[in-house]
């Protein structure tokens, strides 16, 4: 079993725990973990808190190494980690973004009430499973030659919409309008391009999913109304990322960064934190490739959105427009971006790394779509396939404290080997069906690894997030049908 972590966690306010910078030589700032007291035992059960302290070693890190309430043990950064570095003297670390660059979630609303689909979920799930390629090594129906792939990498969601995969307003309802500036296909290796070329419009495997859910409860009517959400409404969530292309970009960059660490004399406690100054050839090349992979991920989710619309409309004998299948929002939760924040009274441009954390901009921010600007950005927090998912909204507290960031999901508590040992996929599928959730998965083994009990209770995660005030509750979603990769 994994060793428990016994370092210092000092109470630092409502649902805030500090690892003092004195904990470990080389920490430049303290660590702050957002969590309720009840979550601390789970957090101490592995080495995630040590990873928060390790991230505090990054040159140029500002204010604190942060972890959201869904913190769990990752590689290099903890999952749920947020670190902002000053672009003038700070670094960019591929490990602070991860292998699945711009893994993210999008939420589609519908005009449907639950009673309209409740008895058809088996068909709905089967049709979606057929329409969207999923599973290990899945390949899509979109064939891309090199010039077309370059356009995907440069333009992201907009490319997909122009090709007919979606509606014009979809682009406005994506973080960064579904296209991160600074992407350069020339910075992406031929290996990454080769892996990406056949995979656009595929879900992938692991924890990726498409879920049909119902809004079970609305906590914040004004925000829900702005987002087009109401109780008993059917919604669809899509969780996927940049597939093999993103994995390869990260793999390639870690080789470069491993050398850069010696070149720039950077001292780190974990090689997976390998990094280079933001303003260096290595740092700039990585950002250009990372942004290209992020755009691939946005295009990927956009293409799948189109197929979800087509499949649902066909199954229900209508059109996507009549179903009101509008995109509520699309958030990235593995990404680094340049954002401006006041630091010690002065405006600073920071490189904000979010590794399993969601951007959560508060009300009034100019980058939030005009329709949502008064209430704050929708923050999409998927849970496990048996219990619930949540929609929250960004707050000013997040802007002040967490570089506009909040939690991204439930966070694992059980390793994949443990969950596979204890749970059989076929039994799990029957159990979920008896609880009103229809599940289709690529394999029983992968299903077992994603069992609800392998995850923290997402309700505990969002309650801690809400109490900390870094994002507040808007609506609770209950799963009806799930497609797992």
């Amino acid at each position, binding site marked *: *079993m*994994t060793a428990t972590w016994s370092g210092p966690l000092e109470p630092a306010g409502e649902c805030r725990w500090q690892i003092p910078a004195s904990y470990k030589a080389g920490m430049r700032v303290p660590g702050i973990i957002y969590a309720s007291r009840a979550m601390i035992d789970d957090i101490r059960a*592995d080495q*995630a808190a040590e990873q928060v302290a390790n991230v505090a070693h990054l040159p140029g890190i500002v204010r604190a190494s942060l972890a959201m309430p869904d913190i*769990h*043990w*990752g*590689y*290099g950064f903890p*999952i749920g980690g947020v670190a902002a570095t000053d672009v003038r003297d700070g670094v960019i670390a591929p*490990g602070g973004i*991860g*292998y*699945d660059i711009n893994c993210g979630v999008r939420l589609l609303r519908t005009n449907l009430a639950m009673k309209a689909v409740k008895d058809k979920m088996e068909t709905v799930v089967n049709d979606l499973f057929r329409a969207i390629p999923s*599973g*290990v*090594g899945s390949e899509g129906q979109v064939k891309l030659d090199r010039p077309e792939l370059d356009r995907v990498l440069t333009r992201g969601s907009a490319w997909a919409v122009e090709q007919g995969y979606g509606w014009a307003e979809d682009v406005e309802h994506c973080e960064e309008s579904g296209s991160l500036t600074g992407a350069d296909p020339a910075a992406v290796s031929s*290996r990454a391009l*080769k*892996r990406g070329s056949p995979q656009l419009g595929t879900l*992938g*495997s*692991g924890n990726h999913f498409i879920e049909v859910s119902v809004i079970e409860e609305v906590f914040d009517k004004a925000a829900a109304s702005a987002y087009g959400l109401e109780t008993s409404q059917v919604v669809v969530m899509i969780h996927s990322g940049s597939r*093999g292309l993103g*994995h*390869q970009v*990260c*793999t390639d960059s*870690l*080789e470069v960064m*491993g*050398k850069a660490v*010696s070149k720039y004399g950077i001292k780190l406690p*974990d*090689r*997976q934190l*390998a990094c280079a100054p933001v303003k260096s050839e290595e740092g700039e090349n990585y950002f250009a490739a990372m942004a290209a992979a992020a755009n691939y991920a946005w295009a990927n989710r956009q293409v799948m959105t189109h197929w979800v619309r087509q499949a649902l409309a066909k199954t229900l004998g209508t059109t996507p427009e009549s179903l009101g299948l509008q995109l509520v929002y699309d958030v990235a939760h593995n990404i680094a971006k340049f954002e401006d924040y006041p630091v010690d009274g002065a405006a600073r441009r920071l490189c904000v790394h979010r590794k399993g954390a969601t951007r959560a901009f508060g009300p009034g921010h100019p980058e939030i779509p005009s329709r949502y600007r008064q209430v704050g950005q929708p923050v999409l927090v998927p849970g496990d396939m048996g219990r619930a998912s949540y929609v929250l909204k960004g707050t000013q507290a997040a802007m002040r404290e967490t570089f506009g960031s909040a939690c991204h999901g439930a966070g*694992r*508590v*059980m*390793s*994949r*080997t*443990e969950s596979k040992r204890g749970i059989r996929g076929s039994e799990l599928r029957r159990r979920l069906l008896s609880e009103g959730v229809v599940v289709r998965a690529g*394999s029983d*083994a*992968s299903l077992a*690894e994603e069992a609800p009990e392998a995850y923290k209770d997402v309700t505990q995660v969002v309650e801690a997030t809400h109490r900390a005030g870094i994002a507040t509750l808007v609506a609770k979603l209950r799963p009806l049908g799930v497609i797992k990769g």
Partner: protein
Amino acid sequence: MGEAFTLLDHTADVKVRATGPNFGATLANVARGMLAVLYDSLSAHFEFHRELEITGYDRASLVVSFLNEILYTLESEGLVPVEFSAVRVDGHALVTTVGWGRPSGPALREIKAATYHDLKVTDTVMEVVFDL
């Protein structure tokens, strides 16, 4: 001598611990452990040999790059290693010949990459965390 490899718990990922009598044999055992994560029971017949040359900047990076090379070959060509032979480490390069084959069924899960996190590399013991 214990098992050639064991799979150890890691909350979000999997760690493979492998042992062997020398660097090349231990490395092959890590690769076998990685394949055991991908396929619960892999069946693949030998098709051909191909020489692999991996470059890195130290032994640890050679190990990570070797494993990532296998993952790349699997995704881009659908091939898995079925036969390992002696490796030659020459400065910052690792050269070996691998026998490749096509698996009879799809992988059960995807590995995004071999990581540097908590990486241990000696001639006789290696531990590698894989991102799933």
